[in-house]
């Protein structure tokens, strides 16, 4: 199977290392140029992104009536190699936009596509939650989501409220470990595609040492995804 990884360049992400890692699982993996940069000349695209901004963490409604300046921001940001951040988007809508753009090549029998986003993505449950990975076609992984999605320990937030920082070893903005963490999430993406392909239900792993485990905390990411281990059951799925 062919696995396509696309996304902008990140200072602390080594795409070659990720491609070589995926190849170990017998995938014909390759990196493609950033899809969004490639499609940034499409005139309809900025408005689509402006419309999927999350405005209120507690309200499901998105930015249905964007202002001209918001559309202009999206227009110039799409064209940037180093995009600005500060907006939180609906992850599922983000996937939908990519799906529309890539519709001709999203054939599960030919290739599986994973897009690395440089923006923060979230999904709505009781409120909007920042996510690392959005399962859809294509699978989208938010690189800044690794830092801001999984929660830090409660002690960290308590300390912050009291005005000081706990020196914890969480994934930071510029962090070489992100490449390894992404490998863990790529295993999740591959497993998701495999389930779709084989018409099986996708379920996270119960084993917190397995990369298919659904990490909610930074400390879980530092174990499950950073180490890229697979439990016995999931190891068999990959080979």
């Amino acid at each position, binding site marked *: 199977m062919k696995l396509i990884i696309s996304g902008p360049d990140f200072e602390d992400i080594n795409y070659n290392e990720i491609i070589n890692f995926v190849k170990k699982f017998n995938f014909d993996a390759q990196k493609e140029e950033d899809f969004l940069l490639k499609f940034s000349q499409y005139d309809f695209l900025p408005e689509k992104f402006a419309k999927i901004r999350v405005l209120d*963490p507690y309200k499901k409604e998105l*930015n249905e009536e964007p202002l001209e300046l918001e559309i202009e921001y999206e227009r110039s940001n799409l064209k940037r190699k180093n995009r600005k951040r500060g907006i939180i988007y609906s992850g599922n809508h983000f996937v939908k936009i990519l799906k529309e753009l890539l519709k001709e090549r999203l054939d599960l029998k030919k290739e599986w596509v994973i897009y690395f986003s440089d923006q923060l993505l979230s999904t709505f449950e009781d409120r909007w939650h920042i996510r690392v990975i959005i399962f859809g076609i294509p699978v989208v992984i938010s690189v800044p989501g690794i830092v801001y999605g999984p929660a830090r320990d409660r002690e960290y937030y308590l300390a912050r409220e009291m005005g000081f920082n706990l020196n914890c070893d969480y994934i930071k903005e510029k962090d070489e470990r992100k490449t390894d963490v992404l490998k863990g999430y790529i295993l999740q993406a591959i497993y998701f595609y495999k389930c779709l392909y084989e018409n099986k239900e996708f379920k996270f792993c119960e084993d917190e040492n397995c990369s298919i485990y659904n990490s909610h905390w930074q400390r879980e990411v530092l174990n499950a995804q950073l180490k890229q281990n697979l439990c016995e059951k999931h190891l068999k799925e990959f080979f």
Partner: protein
Amino acid sequence: MIFAKKGESEVTKAIVESFLSMFKESIKSQVIIIGGGPAGLTCARELAKNKINVLVIERNNYLGGGFWIGGYFMNKVTFRAPSNEYLDEIGVKYEKVEEGLFVSDGAQACSKLIAAASDAGAKFLQLTDFEDVIIREKDGKAKVAGVVVNWSGVKGLPRQITCVDPVGLESEFVVDASGHEAHVIKALEKRGYIKTKGMGAMWVEASEDAVVEHTGEVFPGLIVAGMAVSETFGLPRMGPTFGAMLLSGKRAAEIILSKIKY
């Protein structure tokens, strides 16, 4: 006797004449800035430096807004790179906390910024409340063309004894730098010209970028700067870090400079 002999009437006359002369000049300005906080002051300085006739309207007696205090009554203000370069420009001293993060004394930073705007030639009307926008229509297109203001004290007095009409001040551009309250934007919203989004959740790390990037002409003749940008676009709110206020104010001035008729 140390001081020159001058009576009360001469002192009062000096105040009145000087104020009226400034006020008369301000009836028609090139730019009116609503809000004398860090974004408004920076914008005022940058415009005045370029010989633009600029008036800052502030509802409090003191200028500086929240710039005196860093958060939780602690008078240290923080900046993230590259906003420290602006501090260098106006002579504010600061310490490096860690790579990319700087801290300064609120009193020194704020007073230096006020002085910088004043030295550049900006004019100020304190204790003045923004009440409404002046809208002009030309060829079926609406444009902000000034503001309606009143003495701040009027709002605090019982209605029965305050029938004080406001006055109108005209300008080519109005800058809404009124912070979280976004007074000018809200006035436009009330009239149905614009719909604001409200402020989002707190996320310091990247919301500063977004505030600067979204600073701009939100309606013909109206530029939005500083925290009013967050309120207008529903951007994540910021904690007590002021870099975006300075850079947003600077950007607002750059936008006006590129559009204003000399």
